[in-house]
């Protein structure tokens, strides 16, 4: 059975467990947008136009902290550069689609949809209409993100500032990379990057957020080299 609808449904079901952290994340994002002084419309627009949770938080945090637009935009690009990786892996499963369909389905590529659909694509059972899995997972995730952003925006005007909701920002990012804490090389890159961000914090336009990834990725390159030579 490989009807389009059933594959679509499989995608929606497969992504369901991964929505559990997305829901509070979306609410936190919406609420923080309001707390940092952005209009409800602008906060929501980032969810529609950028549609990348972590990068959206960084974007509004930097702009509200006085970063230049160039720095804020660049950091969004750096954070979302991981999509190149996902696209490079998914392309072989999507190559038969028309250009228009490729362009439309690309909008739905995220950490979560990549994780579940790549797993599905690798399974050999389904030959035709595989991409409906990505559509099902993607549309489900997209809807969840849009709705939770709006809930957060509504709550943001209620939550008092004394609650220190801003502290949810570093906690959320910590949660995203918590699994890498078991890998020594990643922990090393984290420490180097963290310390570098403190050192370069006072560089104008909040440029530390662009400088740090260069230092971090350069140290990652050195670590990779050392590991290769061992």
């Amino acid at each position: 059975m490989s009807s389009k609808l059933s594959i679509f449904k499989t995608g929606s079901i497969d992504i369901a467990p991964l929505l559990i952290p997305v829901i509070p994340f979306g609410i936190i994002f919406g609420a923080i947008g309001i707390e940092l002084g952005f209009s409800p419309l602008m906060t929501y627009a980032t969810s529609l136009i950028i549609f990348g949770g972590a990068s959206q938080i960084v974007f509004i945090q930097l702009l509200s902290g006085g970063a230049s637009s160039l720095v804020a935009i660049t950091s969004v690009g750096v954070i979302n550069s991981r999509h190149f990786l996902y696209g490079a892996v998914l392309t072989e499963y999507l190559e038969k689609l028309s250009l228009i369909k490729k362009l439309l389905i690309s909008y739905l590529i995220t950490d979560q949809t990549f994780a579940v659909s790549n797993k599905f694509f690798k399974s050999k059972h389904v030959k035709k209409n595989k991409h409906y899995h990505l559509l099902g997972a993607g549309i489900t995730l997209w809807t969840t993100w849009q709705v939770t952003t709006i809930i957060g925006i509504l709550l943001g005007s209620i939550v008092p500032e004394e609650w220190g909701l801003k502290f949810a920002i570093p906690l959320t990012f910590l949660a995203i990379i918590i699994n890498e804490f078991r890998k020594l090389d990643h922990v090393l890159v984290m420490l180097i990057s963290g310390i570098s961000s403190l050192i370069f914090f006072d560089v104008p336009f909040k440029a530390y957020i662009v400088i740090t990834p260069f230092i971090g990725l350069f140290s990652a390159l050195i670590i990779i080299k050392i590991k290769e030579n061992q």
Partner: protein
Amino acid sequence: MSWLSVIIAGLITYFTRFSMITFVNGKMLNKKVRLVLSYVPSTVFPAIIFPAVFFNDYGNLVDASDPKIFGILAAIIIGYFSKNIIATIISGLIVYWIFIF
């Protein structure tokens, strides 16, 4: 001005999504580039976490007894052992709230 930033940031993000699928064969990204890209989260997110925890609103270093330090330590410990995203965030917030109230 901010609207233009949102749109440009959106276009760049969209580019990261479609470029590998439409323009090029994914094989163009060689193994080394892929390996380096896999470190992106480990370098970008600490650059947000460290200043948010170690600096106050005025850009000065906080005390070692700052509620944020206790909050982040609790989140690291709970997160490391539970491997659970929600438990990580909630534990950090709760410990933070215990110290600020």
